[in-house]
């Protein structure tokens, strides 16, 4: 399930030759993000290591992970929405068993600078943490 979703995104991204077009697509994805309500934007939900502000709140609904998020950066929203697309509706155990390295095919590290790459890493970690919590 996860790997199919990754493959879908990979193909979508590969379709664009120019970086700028990839980004237009990513920004577009961000528009469809499951936005976190303002009243829920607690500092504890902030992801460290991001140059921009990112709030991320995974929750467990019917045994599956649902993620809401928001950012003041439109591009980061897009990146989060890729993660949301990949991990939403998945059971915690599947997320835990997932090998983070499999995300590398998306080359998100290539299109994102070291600093932000770091932020992305922290976002994934946050999702994994919650998954570990709920699997118990």
């Amino acid at each position: 399930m996860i790997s199919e979703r990754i493959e879908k995104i990979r193909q979508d991204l590969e379709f664009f030759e120019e970086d700028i077009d990839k980004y237009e697509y990513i920004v577009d994805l961000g528009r469809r993000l499951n936005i976190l309500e303002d009243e829920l934007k607690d500092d504890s939900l902030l992801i460290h290591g991001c140059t921009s502000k990112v709030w991320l709140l995974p929750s467990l609904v019917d045994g599956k992970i649902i993620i809401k998020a928001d950012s003041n950066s439109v591009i980061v929203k897009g990146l989060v929405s890729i993660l949301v697309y990949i991990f939403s509706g998945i059971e915690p155990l599947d997320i835990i068993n997932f090998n983070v390295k499999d995300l590398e095919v998306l080359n998100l590290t290539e299109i994102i600078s070291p600093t932000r790459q770091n932020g992305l890493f922290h976002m994934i970690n946050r999702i994994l943490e919650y998954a570990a919590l709920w699997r118990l």
Partner: protein
Amino acid sequence: MIKDDFPYFRNNNIVYLDSASTTQKPQIVLDSIMEYYTHYCSNTHRGSYNHGDKTTTKFEESRNYIKEFIGGRPKDTLIFTKGVTEGINLVANSYVKNNFKSVIISSLEHHSNITPWHMQGRTLGNGLEVIGYNKDLTIDLNHLEDLLKKNRDSFLSITHISNAFGILHPIKEIIDLSRKYNAKILIDGAQAANKLKLDMSWLQPDFYTFSAHKCYGPTGVGALYVNSSIINDLTPYQTGGAVIDRVSYKQSTYLPAPLKFEAGTQNIAGVIGFKKGVEYIKSVGFNNIKENEKKLIKIIYSEFNKIDGVTVWGDTHNMGNISFNVDGITPIDLGILLDKQKIAVRAGHHCAMPIMESLGIDGTLRISLGVYSNESDIQLFFSGLIKAIKILRG
């Protein structure tokens, strides 16, 4: 074309608009570094052989040339540092620390001219005073005079040109004003030495500091000019080899300035290349640099005028650096999308967080110009910017 002097532009088709951060390097700078490493590489000041002497001679030639470049008098001192940051730290440590109750800075300082004062335990109103600014970000000279009156015999540390906004401080006026209240003065010339014809013998500050890497020279080297009237009041900063006349286990006696401030093996290749960097500036000519900047900034202003929701910070007399924001868009997003179009600009707080906070923003997007910047760069920047805004606004 000036770009032809810079190998970087032969190897890249990037629109480089981040010269305030570091400038590209002309071939003559690189050649001088390579010549040192491949023809006469050796250490300085200790030579008993030919190449050691040649290196020492070249090193001291750089010192003299750069001192003259800024209009220093023979009796003034030019100390080589790692850069502006080290220059300010050196002065903070070796001169200001125990001698001044108050340090006064402007609102537009780079972190390098804020945190060394914090390190001494100075905080706002408590050993550190900050000069207010007018709506257009120019300095509030009345407030400065107030501060100087209330804090006689203080130390004024101020940037010549703001890195974040390109605001030029009226340095001569500021120096004259400060002298009335017996202040000593350091000027941070990081953004000025590469574009203004400086004349220390006329300005007569106590200190003036700048970095080679922003003057088309190598990384890891800078200069600190010290007025002859105060050089003897400075204590050594770092010590070690080459600053020493005699050492026993009991004590060390120092060599005269500038040597006593240059401990250890220096960035020799850097110092040699530094000279070539400022030589290059001279060969382009301050007038040409100014005319080119003026022309480009005029275009920049008029292009910004055509875009909705843009705030351009400053007084419309910006020198080299122009900061702006676009309503509803974070500067970082713009920076990324410009990058993807091969346009290098800087997004963020530009190491000037306090003024950003005071303006109620997280940061800006900054364009900054170099001698090689031209109209084509500006056109490409604006078409890239418009495209980026379109994508981000959806």
